[in-house]
């Protein structure tokens, strides 16, 4: 297999020419999202330039604590992103959700690098950062769906939830149907992806490994391992996320604290 081809700056600039199509369609149909799109494109470019520069340094140094610190920073950013997307209060669920995201990322990552790849350095930058990033990205998506579903469904079905408490349910028993619903919602996309992977689109990791010069035979092994890691990471993060955030978002009497929602009025 060949080494990957570098993209020159002018060649990269040519990629932006492709934007003529979406912008042309937006102008033609007067879709009111040109400003938003420009902002997103600028952000994407600037963010990736900075991340690229920073990762370049991290990869060259490849120091254990620095790699770990980078992963922690990624988890913090994911944590804030989940809390904001779910319109919940960071002060109340930020820390427990951080622990859930960290566990959901670290457990499968360390098993991947240690058990599957058998790296002597479990946090070797070349493997830990891209693999950790992929697992974390999926944990983030799962938590947004799962945590939002959990809290919104209890808020929507407040009467039924309180009725369970009144009927003698413990908090664990009363939240059980909502945990099940939220976990199902969070895990379903990964299950669906696993069922169609390779048929509908070539998955990200497989593409990356092939572009990096490896054979498709190696690429599929990486892809299988990452899919299983992602699935186990999402299961860990959603189960822990609900369990740990429940401790800070329900009153000691078992009632959902309305102030956990950012848009709730304090009563």
């Amino acid at each position, binding site marked *: 297999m060949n080494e990957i081809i570098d993209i020159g700056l002018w060649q990269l600039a040519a990629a932006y020419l492709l934007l003529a199509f979406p912008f042309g369609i937006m102008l033609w149909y007067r879709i009111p999202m040109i400003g938003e799109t420009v902002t997103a494109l600028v952000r994407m470019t600037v963010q990736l330039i900075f991340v690229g520069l920073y990762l370049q340094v991290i990869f060259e140094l490849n120091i254990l604590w620095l790699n770990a610190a980078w992963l922690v920073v990624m988890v913090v950013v994911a944590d804030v992103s989940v809390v904001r997307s779910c319109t919940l209060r960071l002060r109340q669920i930020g820390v427990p959700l951080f622990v859930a995201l960290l566990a959901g990322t670290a457990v499968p990552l360390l098993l991947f690098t240690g058990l599957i790849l058998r790296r002597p350095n479990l946090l070797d930058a070349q493997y830990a950062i891209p693999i950790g990033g992929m697992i974390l990205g999926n944990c983030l998506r799962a938590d947004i769906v799962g945590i939002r579903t959990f809290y919104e469904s209890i808020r929507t*079905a407040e*009467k039924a939830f309180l009725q369970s408490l*009144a*009927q*003698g349910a*413990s908090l664990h028993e009363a939240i059980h149907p909502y945990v099940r619903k939220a976990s199902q919602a969070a895990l379903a996309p990964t299950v669906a992806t696993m069922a169609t992977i390779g048929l509908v689109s070539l998955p990200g990791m497989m593409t990356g490994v092939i572009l990096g010069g490896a054979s498709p035979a190696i690429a599929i092994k990486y892809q299988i391992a990452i899919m299983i890691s992602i699935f186990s990471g999402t299961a860990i993060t959603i189960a822990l996320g609900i369990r740990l955030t429940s401790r800070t978002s329900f009153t000691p*009497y*078992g009632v959902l604290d309305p102030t956990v929602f950012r848009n709730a009025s304090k*009563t």
Partner: protein
Amino acid sequence: MPDALEAREVEVRFGKQEVLRRFSIHLKPGGKAVLAGPSGCGKSTVLRCFLGFVVPDAGAVCINGTPLTAETVWDLRRHLAYIAQEPDLGTGTTAEALERPFHFRANAGLRGNLERMPELFERFNLPRELLSKDVTALSGGEKQRVALVSAVLLDRDIFLLDEVTSALDKTSRKAVGEYFRKREDATVLCVAHDQEVFSFADQIIELPGRPGAKETA
């Protein structure tokens, strides 16, 4: 013998809004009381205080002589049966909704009570066919009576009833009234606009209306 239900000088505020002010009640075991008063005066809030769904800003709430706290509430709820004005019985069939509470550890030993379901359905004028019907598709009156059956099956000694007959016809209202009149052992605290149903009550507690007060459901 301690009071089954006791509230002493209870005060509840929602934000700046005062809902209950120095509210007190003493109800002996087997006692029956009706909470009356204009809409928004805090009647439902009183019931919710006994369940721990609303925590008073001042005063104390006791059940069977035990102060209701975050630690005791879980055990004390095992003495209470609560029926909301518009009960939400969850999802699934009516039979599943009635069986659900028996999956909770607190009610595990009461599962045999489900055998009384046919008798209670008859008593509250509910057709047996409802058992296989989707519980969300029941009418308001059917939901109220199914919630009542569920509460009775749980063998509680204290009933907190929030307008449980508001959607019932005259025959069913009478059946409900008859049931609680005969239950001499049961303590009943109910919110009812139609006080005729609970005409046998020992006490009628009139809560004063508060301008601008808003009651939570």
